[in-house]
């Protein structure tokens, strides 16, 4: 159904209580601070990026690794691969547990793609983060706690959608990633021109979603 949430699936979820230092280094962790790892694969990469960031707000964990796989979950290397592997690291296994709990809750109830054409033939990710955590704030170059619209859609829909979002509210582009990406979507991160302007981020995301639905319904117009 149109605009129904498409809840992401956690395909695998494992812990390493005391990881080998070589592995820690290879996956971007710091052996002097990190001991335990939490590893997740998921069938929606952007939902997991948001969920990983969410974990950093609830536990003393760092997101040390998060990479989308080529061509998305429909072309995965195995049934547990999905389209992303995310790794959080911490000094204590308990912090990993707390972080994973927040991450799983975020995937189950918050961050997700939506059906943009009523048949799941076109999907989009018009997510608004109320307050950035340590991971995405560093990636975006914004202070932690700032709001941000995290917008993803297929190439044509996304391009029309980004334009609509930028014009709909007083927001600015933090990052615009034209297609192709690893999963062949396009992505934009927008934040308020004034710091802390959540309402503008929401208005931009809504305009983006409406534009994507419109392109999906009317792919050709003059």
């Amino acid at each position: 159904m149109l605009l129904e949430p498409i809840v992401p699936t956690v395909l695998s979820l494992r812990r390493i209580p005391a990881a080998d230092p070589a592995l820690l280094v290879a996956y971007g962790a710091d052996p002097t601070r990190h001991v335990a790892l939490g590893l997740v694969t998921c069938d929606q990469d952007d939902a997991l990026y948001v969920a990983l960031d969410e974990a950093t707000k609830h536990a003393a964990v760092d997101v040390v690794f998060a990479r989308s796989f080529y061509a998305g979950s429909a072309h995965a290397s195995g049934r547990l691969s999905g389209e992303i592997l995310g790794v959080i690291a911490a000094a204590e296994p308990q912090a990993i547990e707390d972080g994973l709990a927040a991450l799983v809750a975020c995937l189950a109830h918050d961050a997700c793609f939506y059906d943009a054409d009523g048949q799941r033939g076109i999907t989009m990710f018009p997510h608004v983060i109320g307050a950035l955590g340590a991971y995405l704030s560093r990636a975006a170059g914004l202070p932690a706690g700032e709001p941000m619209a995290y917008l993803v859609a297929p190439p044509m829909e996304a391009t029309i959608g980004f334009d609509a979002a930028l014009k709909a509210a007083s927001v600015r582009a933090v990052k615009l990633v034209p297609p192709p990406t690893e999963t062949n979507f396009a992505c934009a991160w927008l934040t308020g021109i004034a710091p802390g302007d959540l309402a503008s981020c929401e208005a931009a995301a809504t305009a983006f979603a409406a534009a994507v639905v419109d392109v999906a319904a009317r792919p050709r117009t003059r």
Partner: protein
Amino acid sequence: MSGTRALIAALRERLGAADPAPPRVPMPVVPAPPARVYVPRREPARGDAGGARHTTALLAIGHVGTRYATDVVLQFQAELAVAHEAVAAEVPDGWAADHGFLPLSSRVASHREFLLRPDLGRRLAPDSLQRLRDQAERSPDVQIILADGLSATACVDSGPALCAALAAACQQRGLSVGTPVCARFARVWLEDEIGHEVGAKVAVIVLGERPGLGTGDGLSAYLVHGPQIGKTDGDRNMMSNIHERGTPPPQAAERLAALAAAMIEQGTSGVGLDLARVAGEVERGYRPPQVRQRLVEP
């Protein structure tokens, strides 16, 4: 938690897509289905070497999805209604006397009690017992008892004719038949008490049998030699399916009289009776292929 879910739900509402029902499919063109008519004796179905004509089972009626066609449903319901009506029917007050029977009743007081208490249906009510003692002829060779059993309809419709034919057949063999009686709310074993009271050599009870689908007109007859309370089913001989599609009443009367005569001659009944000695007379006749009646007129 972010507010994204609520945000998108609001957008869905605004776009008029909040109705959770799936989109309407194009209006179908609905042609009237072909007539699937219940035909009692139908032409052989494809690949059927005429087998369906050897049975009254409802075969080759087709199907609608996995269910019955409407016409079959109506026919079926009519057959069920006929059966239920036959079970629920009662012999009208005064009917027995009007048709020349001495009216008797078992100890059963109501139709429901009749169904639930077979023990009461096997014994005479005190006033009926007195009437039998006062008015019935003593010591006949054969005591004929008509009874409602599980179909008063069959009892009333074809009972008198069968009883008259049976009496005539007995008399033709030189057997006396005594006073004809008709018992209400009666079970088979009631013949033991009645036969014993009048001192009959053989008691025959003719009663409406449990109806089948679409039928309520069948009679059964049970015969016992030396009737008295305590006789069991092994002491009896019986004939069922007495109706036009089974054994027609005139033939049934002849065979029942032959059985009664054999019992008197051999001095026993039931498992002790040597049927081989009367085989020619009581053997079941040829039954032609059956036809089911259409109850709902087209």
